[in-house]
């Protein structure tokens, strides 16, 4: 206490000596010089002279001298010296360091410990300056004589500038040294900042480039898809006959322009191989509509669709690289496409990916309407076209819909087959249509990362405030010793800047690495193909700016204290009486509660999304999806159209497929297993029904059931004989039997699949006899283009009939293999080519042309939820980690503040366990408040997450409980280490400082 008294005196002395700031033209005091014996010390410039000769004394020894001189004659305790020389969170051998500093000081003064002339040792207590001192203030002109004689030769504006720079440099160096001296604090703070910046930049970048601004097209933000929605089943149709799009283009008042473009498969013949390519046919103004200049050559235009103009084609960048290896001399070369030679006139740039096609070809608005059949693909142009418009500025989607609705009402009666009976016009932003429900995932992720950045910043804020509290006294002492407020602010500023800069640097590095890492995820199947995901500079700058501001503001906290403050009280708070700085701890506790709550929200969301993903992957498809090879078989135009021809073809093909090593069983089928098959109403004699009894019908061979592992429940499966003689028999799914033959045995009953009546090449009014029942397989529902597995109770009934029944359309094959399916694709191609070079094998478009059913399932169903699950899990784990670190640091801080209290309690007989419990209880209170707030918020926010979930409720108790338990346990663990440290407090040590 005596020490405090002395400091109070110092403060009083300094205060009374200081001239008033508005002292007018009278000389400004620059610093104070203290004379003792033959020595003179300048406390401002840290210089020491002996009889006018400068003596080198820097660093700690000078500081010791400074403190001794300030309170000459009084005891300066070792603790006071220690507090001044080393920040409270440094761990060095104080005693040794202090002794060394004093010895160096004595050496410089020519003093000795045994016969002190200047510095007397008071054993174990401290030091006292015993010589007589004489103080004099040094003033700037008019009378500078004395100062001139001793002043080093730096003067004027330049000199002041140099000195300021010098000071700044010293501040920065000191700041970095401070960081180095508390490596724990520095590491945590820098890592926290870096993680926050890195993670938020990566995710913001994806959202920015992939969701907000994915398209390189002119007027990308006004691209609008025009569709009609069947009011009966809410299904959208977005493709129309070309003449109808033309009518829309000419009749509307709300679009700047409307482009017609359609997709169709084009057979590309090169040498003696054939491949199926995806072609886009677009009307001639495509160039201006998209507004993207070609990489090489030119766009097509009106001149290319005039009669007699040579046929032309533009290449997609990826296709150009794959097929022509990026050869720039490709212009002028010819490609055989659908038996027609087309000249390559241009290559489009990387980001032009409309519809993900390989080729782009012009289609004239006045093209004669081709003859149409439902399953005819092999034509020169697409049959149907998307109608995409550029909405005029200021026009709403609704206005546009109303505008084109009038035109559609006139068109519909002319093409009754192409329009639903009752429909409504729907206009949607192209971007929304492509991202569909997944856009929301990204916005949620956006929010999640925002929370993460917030957690990171508040964590660093908490760390800095803790340091601030610990340093309040240091700052007060510095101020009492004459450091101006500006000087203090500058020092703290440079310290926070050093921290923030290190964090930002590492953050940029993490963002860069994270971006590379995220590229490894299958973003292609998630984001629009046009999007180019790259580190977004504005986003990075934004994250850095936020972190800088947070860091610097919190780093300045001790300076605010000083400016606000009542120095004396702060000086008096020797660390024993910590009431003055305690409000910080409350604020910090608030920060930690916030962090726990936010991270709980993140964890809950991530947990729900992950559980939803696992639920999705665990859904029983009813078939066995592993090691299934599937592919479409495209037949050349006009051939294999009759049932007999198809039967003959597959009867040759299937046995050959069976000889491929690793193939277990094989079958013909109509599309992707489970997911695509013609569907329609059914007719059952004696069972009249008004509503639609929807059922899919699969045309397959006898191997279907064993290949996909469907098991027979009743009756028999299809046999080779059924296929060969095209018997009108069918195997049905269990739910078909249950739904349409409730309580009856369906075996032997007749059923008609009405969808066959709509296909011209297929026998009409065909009744099939039900011979067997197999287990259900589950399809998917499309909810806003976001596929979900249908409710098992609602999954569509299916019938399986011999494929020899009809010869319509293209067909597919599926094989169960013992090897990875994609490995046998070449064997299949070779067999097909040997049978008929014109028949082409096509893999799944969604998975980029691969042949494994599981690839298709990934691309079709799992990739997006998996991405969401991974991204949320990453965000949540980072947030969790940061919150735990925050909790740990605040508890450590509380323990350090309470060391004295704990010492008293131990001295009064508290057991170590009681102390452990006391601290853990404090931590638990913080955790519990955070968890409660987080839970409440999570439950309040469920509706945002609900759209991302399937198979799990947004208030899933298992997830909530698991999250709460995880958070609480981890939190307690984070509290345990500081609490354990609290139990090691030595009461004797803490109580001795009197």
């Amino acid at each position, binding site marked *: *206490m005596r020490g405090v008294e002395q400091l109070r005196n110092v403060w009083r002395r300094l205060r009374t000596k200081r001239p008033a700031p508005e002292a007018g033209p009278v000389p400004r005091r620059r610093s104070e010089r203290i004379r003792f014996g033959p020595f003179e010390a300048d406390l401002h410039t840290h210089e020491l002279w002996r009889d006018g000769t400068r003596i080198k004394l820097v660093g700690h020894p000078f500081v010791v001298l400074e403190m001794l001189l300030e309170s000459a004659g009084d005891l300066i305790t070792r603790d006071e010296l220690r507090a001044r020389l080393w920040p409270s969170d440094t761990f060095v*051998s104080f*005693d*040794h360091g202090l*002794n060394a500093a004093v010895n160096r000081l004595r050496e410089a003064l020519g003093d000795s410990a045994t016969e002190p002339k200047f510095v007397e040792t*008071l*054993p*174990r*207590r401290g030091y006292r300056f015993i010589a007589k001192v004489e103080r004099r203030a040094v003033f700037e002109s008019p009378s500078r004589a004395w100062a001139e004689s001793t002043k080093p030769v730096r003067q004027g504006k330049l000199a002041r500038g140099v000195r300021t720079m010098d000071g700044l440099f010293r501040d920065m160096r000191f700041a970095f040294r401070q960081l180095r001296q508390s490596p724990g604090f520095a590491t945590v703070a820098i890592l926290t900042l870096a993680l926050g910046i890195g993670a938020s930049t990566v995710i913001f970048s994806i959202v920015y480039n992939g969701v907000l601004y994915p398209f390189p097209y002119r007027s990308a933000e006004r691209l609008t898809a025009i569709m009609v929605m069947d009011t009966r089943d809410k299904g959208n149709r977005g493709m129309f006959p070309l003449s109808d799009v033309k009518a829309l283009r000419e009749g509307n008042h709300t679009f700047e322009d409307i482009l017609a473009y359609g997709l169709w498969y084009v057979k590309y013949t090169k040498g003696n191989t054939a491949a199926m390519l995806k072609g886009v046919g677009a009307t001639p103004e495509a160039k201006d509509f998209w507004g993207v200049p070609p990489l090489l050559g030119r766009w097509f235009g009106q001149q290319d669709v005039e009669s007699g103009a040579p046929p032309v084609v533009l290449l997609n960048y990826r296709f150009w690289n794959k097929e022509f290896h990026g050869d720039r001399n490709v212009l002028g070369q010819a490609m055989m496409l659908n038996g027609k030679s087309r000249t390559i006139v241009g290559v489009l740039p990387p980001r032009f990916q409309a519809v993900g096609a390989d080729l782009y070809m012009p289609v004239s608005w006045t093209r004669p309407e081709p003859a149409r059949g439902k399953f005819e693909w092999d034509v020169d142009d697409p049959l149907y076209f998307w109608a995409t418009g550029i909405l005029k500025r200021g026009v709403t989607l609704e206005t546009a819909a109303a505008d084109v609705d009038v035109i559609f009402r006139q068109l519909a009666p002319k093409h009754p087959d192409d329009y639903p009976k009752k429909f409504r016009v729907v206009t949607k932003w192209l971007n929304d249509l492509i991202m569909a429900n997944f856009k929301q995932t990204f916005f949620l992720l956006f929010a999640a990362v925002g929370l993460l950045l917030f957690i990171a910043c508040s964590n660093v804020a908490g760390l800095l405030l803790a340091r601030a509290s610990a340093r309040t006294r240091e700052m007060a002492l510095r101020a009492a010793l004459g450091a101006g407020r500006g000087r203090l602010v500058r020092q703290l500023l440079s310290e926070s800047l050093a921290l923030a800069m290190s964090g930002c640097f590492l953050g940029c590095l993490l963002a860069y690495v994270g971006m590379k890492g995220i590229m490894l995820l299958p973003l292609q199947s998630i984001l629009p193909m046009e999007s180019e995901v790259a580190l977004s500079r504005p986003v990075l700058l934004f994250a850095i700016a936020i972190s800088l501001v947070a860091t610097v503001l919190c780093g300045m906290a001790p300076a605010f204290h000083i400016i606000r403050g009542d120095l004396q009280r702060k000086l008096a708070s020797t660390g*024993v*009486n*910590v*009431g003055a700085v305690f409000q910080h701890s409350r604020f910090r506790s608030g920060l930690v509660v916030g962090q726990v709550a936010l991270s709980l929200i993140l964890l809950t969301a991530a947990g729900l999304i992950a559980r939803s993903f696992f639920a999705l992957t665990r859904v029983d498809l009813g078939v066995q999806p592993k090691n299934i090879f599937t592919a479409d078989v495209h037949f050349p135009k006009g051939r294999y159209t009759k049932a007999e021809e198809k039967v003959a073809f597959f009867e040759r093909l299937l046995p050959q497929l069976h000889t491929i090593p690793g193939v277990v069983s094989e079958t013909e089928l109509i599309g992707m297993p489970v997911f695509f098959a013609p569907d329609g109403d059914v007719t059952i004699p004696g069972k009249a029904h008004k509503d639609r009894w929807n059922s899919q019908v699969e045309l397959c061979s006898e191997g279907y059931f064993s290949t996909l592992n469907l098991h027979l429940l009743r009756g028999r499966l299809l046999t080779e004989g059924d296929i060969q003689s095209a018997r009108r028999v069918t195997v049905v799914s269990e739910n078909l039997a249950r739904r349409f033959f409730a309580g009856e045995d369906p075996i032997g009953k007749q059923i008609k699949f009405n969808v066959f009546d709509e296909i011209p090449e297929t026998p009409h009014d065909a009744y099939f006899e039900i011979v067997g029942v197999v287990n259900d397989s589950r399809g998917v529902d499309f909810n806003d283009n976001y596929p979900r597995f249908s409710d098992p109770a609602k999954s569509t009934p299916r019938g399986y009939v011999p494929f020899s029944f009809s010869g319509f359309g293209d067909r597919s094959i599926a094989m169960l293999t013992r090897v990875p399916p994609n490995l046998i694709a070449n064997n299949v191609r070779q067999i097909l080519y040997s049978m008929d070079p014109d028949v082409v094998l096509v893999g799944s478009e969604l998975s980029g042309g691969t042949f494994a059913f599981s690839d298709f399932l990934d691309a079709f169903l799992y990739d997006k939820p998996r991405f969401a699950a991974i991204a949320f899990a990453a965000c949540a784990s980072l947030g969790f980690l940061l919150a735990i670190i925050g909790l740990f640091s605040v508890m450590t801080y509380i323990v350090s503040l309470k060391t*004295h*209290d704990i010492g*008293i*309690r131990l*001295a*009064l*007989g*508290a*057991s170590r366990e*009681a102390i452990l419990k006391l601290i853990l209880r404090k931590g638990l209170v913080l955790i519990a408040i955070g968890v409660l707030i987080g839970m409440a918020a999570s439950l309040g926010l469920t509706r945002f997450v609900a759209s991302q979930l399937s198979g799990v409720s947004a208030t899933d108790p298992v997830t909530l409980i698991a999250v709460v338990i995880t958070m609480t346990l981890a939190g307690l663990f984070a509290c345990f280490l500081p609490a354990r440290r609290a139990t090691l407090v030595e*009461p*004797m040590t803490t*109580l*001795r400082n*009197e």
Partner: protein
Amino acid sequence: MIRLNNIERAYKTGAGQSWVLRRINLTIEAGEFVTIMGPSGAGKSSLLNVLALLDDAWAGQYWFRDQAVHSMKRKERAELAKRNVGMVFQSYHLLDDLTVRENIDLPLSYKDFPARQRQSLLADALDRFQIVAKKDLFPSQLSGGQQQLVGVARAVVHKPALLLADEPTGNLHSSQAKEIMELFRELNQQGTTIVQVTHSEANAAYGNRVVQLHDGWLASDTAVSPMPPTAAGLR
């Protein structure tokens, strides 16, 4: 009650060891009021810490009521201290965020007293020190003398046999100091053995024996005749 035999205590320093207690031999009988005096750094507080069983790192023999403290484990020593020793500190060492009542209750809460007995002991102490009216105040709302009053109340609430006081009046005005010392005398007369460390001759006069320490050595041990209360009051 207490027998110290060749007690030594050293602190490790950078170079080697520095001794704070050297071969201390001291016997304190039950009911004594002993004052430890000596210049700063003589080892007074260190000796008090040894007596209080707060310190573990001494060498020598320490008998407390014929129990060999030196052969006890840390836990046993803590248990012994908990039951028999009360401590008063120069800077009171009250917990800032507990009320007067809670501060006094603290030792009881650590000593497994049944709730009812705890209540009565607490009420007793509040009455005896006449601080009932202040029981819900926080330490910061009290004067120094009042705070030390609470400190003493806390030290004796569980009726310890030995009361140790380290400069109990160091932070107090002389009138407040006198009150505290009167209180000590009263406690002593009621049978509590007291050992105090002080610089003040006036305080020493309340005791019946003065032990002088110098550089860790026991320099002198003299009996003083207790002053009559009136005489102490005149000082």
